[in-house]
């Protein structure tokens, strides 16, 4: 086949590169897992057509008698999955560890209106904010003044006849989602494959060209960890069970007309494409009740890996893995914590990234708005997070009980520094010098809080998690898949 002929064949694995007038058919299969247990299941795909990236896995919890029990607010049904892997034959193409923690980062880019209008029902993610038109602490509803903001849950409609109750946060109105989202309803939700494996947002797998078994493996969050759900009080989170009678995959296969697929196969007997995968690095940081042994206020130099790789992005956060009862926090453990305020004073976070003997930033970053801007610049999208939720700034001077996020005085709240306030603080770095990382790897330097303010964090263990977005190359050689680092 000549080069001219090849140029007429569209790059069918790249989403968006097909012509708009090209006809295609979509065939959907409903697949049950071939293996499943309490903590694991595997789906095997049929080797036909192109795998549509928006194919989805439906999953939910068994209906229980538990009341006021929901999937975690920030990541919804993603909390059920601890690890996911896409394998072709014996080759792992993509894998994300601590998937829930990773999705805590990914989910902040959803517009709040998207969350309440769509994601509430698709994934049970519900972080949507609105003004609380309450004219000061303890005052009545106002049609002008909003003294704080709260999570919008549609409960407002339930309580429209009792406005004072709603706006003073008396009861569940402000904090709890709709009844159908309670685990007692046994609702099902959907996770798209492109959410499990982000490279599928731009690529679709040519299954018909692969001779090996293509499988998707899900490792579930252990129920005893209490990380699957949130509750208004610690009750039965450790027995929340996935409904294996209803877990299935809706696999959509795309077919193109005429000879185009055969031409594509013949033209790409050996094909390669680049994609990104995520590598997790974890480090335990211990906060103690004194200024001597704690990590607070001390520069942490973390070797986070990446030696010899091309790293396009670094994502990090200080996760709340050490809570005894994470189920009573609105975000469960899927939160990246910012230092608490002390005497209304915000505590700095100072950071930089060092690689190839040079720092990424000429001076350390020490300003929360710059941290936030770096997330925007690194991710190419804006996090939809209020200032108080990201960095604990802007809390105002209202007395306790009327704090800026209405969650502060709710059951699922912030009393122990585990609520929404300062709960989604991520840092992102984009190594931008077009360099491969040398053998020393990346060194992430970060200082949480002031040197004398150990109480900026609760006394417990935290896990500093860092994902490296690494460029990889996949090769499909006459039906056999292989992958390597770029």
């Amino acid at each position: 086949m000549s080069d001219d002929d090849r140029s007429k064949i569209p790059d069918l694995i790249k989403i968006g590169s097909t012509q708009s007038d090209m006809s295609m058919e979509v065939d959907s299969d409903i697949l049950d897992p071939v293996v499943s247990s309490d903590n694991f299941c595997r789906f095997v795909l049929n080797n036909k057509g192109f795998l549509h990236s928006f194919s989805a896995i439906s999953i939910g919890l068994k209906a229980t008698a538990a009341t006021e029990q929901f999937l975690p607010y920030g990541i919804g049904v993603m909390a059920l999955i601890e690890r996911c892997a896409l394998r072709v034959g014996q080759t792992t193409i993509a894998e994300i560890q601590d998937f829930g923690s990773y999705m805590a980062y990914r989910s902040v880019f959803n517009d709040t209106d998207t969350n309440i209008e769509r994601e509430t029902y698709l994934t049970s993610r519900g972080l949507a904010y609105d003004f609380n038109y309450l004219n000061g602490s303890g005052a009545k509803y106002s049609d002008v003044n909003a003294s704080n903001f709260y999570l919008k849950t549609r409960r407002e409609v339930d309580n429209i006849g009792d406005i004072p109750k709603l706006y003073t946060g008396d009861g569940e109105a402000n904090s709890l989602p709709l009844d159908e989202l309670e685990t007692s309803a046994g609702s099902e939700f959907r996770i798209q494959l492109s959410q499990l494996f982000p490279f599928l947002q731009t690529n679709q797998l040519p299954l018909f060209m692969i001779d090996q078994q293509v499988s998707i493996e899900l490792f579930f969050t252990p129920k005893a960890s209490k990380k699957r759900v949130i509750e208004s009080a610690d009750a039965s989170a450790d027995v929340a069970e996935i409904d294996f009678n209803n877990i299935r995959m809706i696999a959509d296969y795309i077919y193109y007309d005429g000879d185009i697929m055969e031409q594509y196969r013949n033209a790409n007997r050996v094909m390669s494409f680049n994609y990104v995968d995520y590598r997790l690095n974890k480090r335990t940081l211990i906060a103690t009740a004194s200024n001597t042994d704690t990590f607070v206020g001390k520069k942490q130099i973390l070797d986070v890996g990446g030696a010899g790789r091309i790293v396009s992005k670094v994502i990090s956060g200080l996760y709340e893995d050490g809570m005894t009862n994470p189920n009573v926090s609105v975000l469960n453990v899927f939160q990246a914590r910012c230092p608490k305020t002390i005497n209304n004073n915000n505590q700095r976070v100072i950071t930089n990234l060092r690689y190839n003997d040079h720092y990424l930033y000429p001076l350390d970053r020490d300003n929360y708005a710059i941290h936030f801007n770096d997330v925007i610049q690194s991710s190419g999208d804006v996090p939809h997070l209020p200032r108080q939720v990201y960095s604990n700034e802007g809390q105002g001077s209202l007395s306790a009980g009327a704090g800026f996020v209405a969650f502060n005085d709710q059951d699922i709240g912030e009393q122990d520094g585990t609520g929404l306030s300062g709960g989604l603080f991520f840092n992102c770095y984009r190594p931008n010098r077009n360099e491969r990382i040398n053998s020393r790897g990346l060194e992430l330097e970060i200082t949480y809080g002031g040197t004398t303010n150990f109480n900026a964090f609760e006394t417990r263990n935290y896990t500093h998690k860092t994902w490296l977005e690494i460029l990889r190359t996949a090769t499909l050689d006459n039906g056999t898949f292989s992958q390597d680092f770029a």
Partner: protein
Amino acid sequence: MSSNVNGRTHYLEIQPSNVKSNGKVSYRDGNPVIEFIIGEQNTYLLGQTLRLAGNIQVYKTDDTYATTADNINVSPKLGMLGAIDQIVLSSQRNKSVIEHIRHFGRWASSYYGNVASKGETLTHLNETTGMMANPLAQKISFTANQNGASQTSAEYDGNSFCVPLTTGLLSSSDPVPLSAQWGIGGLNLALHLTPDSQFLFAPTLGNAYYELSNLKLICEVVEPAVDELSRLMSQSSGAMSYNAITSYYTSINSTFATINFNLALSNVLSVFLNFIPSNYLNNLAYDGFQTTPLMNNATEIAPITQMVITRGGQKIGFEYNLDANVRDNASSTIADPQLVRFYMNAFNKFMDSKKSQLSPHTTFRKLNATSANTHYPEGGQYFGLGIAFDNVSGDGVAFQSGNNFGVNLETGLTNDNPHATFIFVRSKQTLAFTPNGLQVVS
């Protein structure tokens, strides 16, 4: 010139060149202008990555933090952005002014209402600018922020911010060459601060002021690859195009208001206007960034009943007299849909506009005299007029050679209440540069 310059990118962090030794800047203490210098160097500046960052704190009197109990606030439309009055970009090498945006706060008070949703003011704009689209929420979270008030455990003062400087040159997707040989010869950036009396709304606190600290510019620059640099070094001239913002000011005080300007611009894409009673400006008793409708007094709107846009005396934009709904029904409280649509169209193509804060809550035709006309839901009133001349080709229309821009308004402005009128023009401009100097072709 492509924005995908082949080369190595790295970050810059620029400190201001004229701050006091304590690093604090305030209009009150005699620092009305902050200057930054991005020196001449063989790199491209990625203008879209440039941010002004620092901290801002509001004081009700000398070194005393404002609290929620104090009657003091900043505009909920702007947050920190209201502190910037003018942005002047010039060449470091030959001092030629490239772009000068006046009344930046007035421009931004309309702009963000038209391009950002209420949800965005609660989220990413809240984090980067401190903006929050409700007066009380703005006050609690920003103006009365107590960070730094207690010396115990204090690390820094006030609110963090990191804002883009939205000028035509810096918003362009084309990178800005900083070289003396093949570019503009470095960039000087001067920020004129807004007076306290304009930035703050503090009717009972005559000594209220704001203070900036830890100021810096952050940005990314690209070092061209060696082969490209070699080619550039032999280049004797260059040019880049961008959509610039030009501002004009006038006042109106009549039932038949005529605005007429020689714009002297050849590629005008759109124009919008916003209004405010003149006595609200630079007056602590009022929020000077309100975008009000015309008002006879604190309780009575002076409705615009007809609008005609002209170029050189001929109608342009729409070939008819735009009669507003209130012309037929004087008691209507509903905003005229055509005026709103044309106004929004001046920022984005109306059909492509996915988000804004213009809603029945913010455009309804009713005044609330409470609290100096600030007592409104969401970000307050979003009134303005606008017209887009070219949403197709991107080349715009010429307002030169005596073809003046005109707006003719029939209003109900029967009282003696002059209104400041701010006019902002978006036009395509070209910056041409040689080692000997710069020229802006507008």
